[in-house]
């Protein structure tokens, strides 16, 4: 159950973090 919990959170967490980092890179241009 614990393994499934980690895998599921990674499956949703990794794409979300990727999207957030891309957006953050873009957002930093505002202060560049």
């Amino acid at each position, binding site marked *: 159950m614990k393994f499934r919990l980690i895998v*599921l959170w990674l*499956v949703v967490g990794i794409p*979300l973090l990727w*999207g957030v980092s891309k*957006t*953050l890179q873009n957002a930093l*241009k505002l202060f560049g």
Partner: protein
Amino acid sequence: MPSSFLDRESTVAPAGYNRFLVPPAALAVHLSIGQAYAFSTFNLPLTKLLGITHSDPSDWKLTDVGWTFSIAIAILGLSAAVFGRWVERVGPRKSMFTAALCFGGGFIVAAVGIHFHQLWLLYLGYGVLGGCGLGIGYISPVSTLIKWFPDRPGMATGMAIMGFGGGALIAAPLSLLLMEHFKTPTSTGVLETFVTMGVIYFMYMMIGVIAVRVPAANWKPAGWVPPVKAQRLVTTANVAVDNAWRTPQFWLLWGVLCMNVTAGIGVLGQASPMIQEIFSGRVTPAAAAGFVGLLSLFNMGGRFFWATISDYLGRRNTYMVFFLLGILLYSAVPTLGHLGYIELFVAAFAVILSMYGGGFATIPAYLRDMFGTMNVGAIHGRLLTAWSVAGVLGPVLVNYIRQFQIDHGVAKAQAYSITMYIMCGLLFVGFLCNLAMRPVDERYHYRAPKPAK
């Protein structure tokens, strides 16, 4: 796939099931359908399908393509309202599967429309079919999460609805990446991108379909005791969906959501030109895109933050903060722009957009507090018609008032001031709706039919 796999009975969790397995299932669906907010990345490429490097006279116009998103959002609200009761009856797995079929299939039908250059197929595919996927997918996991987290309903639904905000953050770079990958001298790559995204999103949503579980009847979190002392605006009763919309509370909440969304959605759509025009010469288009990105981040983060806070602060108090702080910030924005305080201007809009997202994420828990858990998903579906109205009202207010002022000789930098004060007025209406909130009259409460003697 045997049909029984999709039935509610097959999704009942065994004893000892870890409830934290359910939010990622909901997130898989919301992260996918949140793509809708990034549809604008396709707008320009869709106007160059024939000309490839430029818009051919027989290419679709930007205004024609722009309708696709509007149709999808309008259908989202309508389908959530129409299918809410069905979603409640069949359970989250079958409804999430239907949403995956509609949303993924919508991309494929739209791709056929792109192939044959038939605009109506784009509207039918992404707008109507995809819009049904959005509406059904949006409400599918809500009541399930509320039942799994009776102790923290705001946090649980906030987590899922945060996914809808986060979906755009993934879809925007993903769409650009795919279009770049599929681009050739004879193709913009949009057709291939639509097919790929349709397949990817269908498969990703299937993770949610497979993982979702509903709690067994009368299940409670270990060690949690329902509060003995009833709170004034948190009911222990239930109201059926057909009665809920006859109560004044439903329409007050409708007003609360509509005003909160209208105030945010118009700004979100015009954020890039707005900051460039108010700070003319100081903000480049690239920096303006950064501003839009920053607002999207706060829109997403606010969904989790405010919905979680509402578990401690109470739902009505949280909306009071949205409306009062919103009025304060909106009324300060013209002055901040006039004085050239760009950092404070950005900060004000970041907080405003966090509350816009927070409004979406806190409403399911507010509905639970007012109407109970029995039909909360279906009631939520009907309430989302407020979103459809706000989706039209917000952009129309911002765009037309700006244009009206410019046509009457107001400088572009000052053309947003009146709009901001109108937003304050809308938020004040929302404040009054929230202030008028009272517990639902007992005559609307659900009473189980007495067994025949």
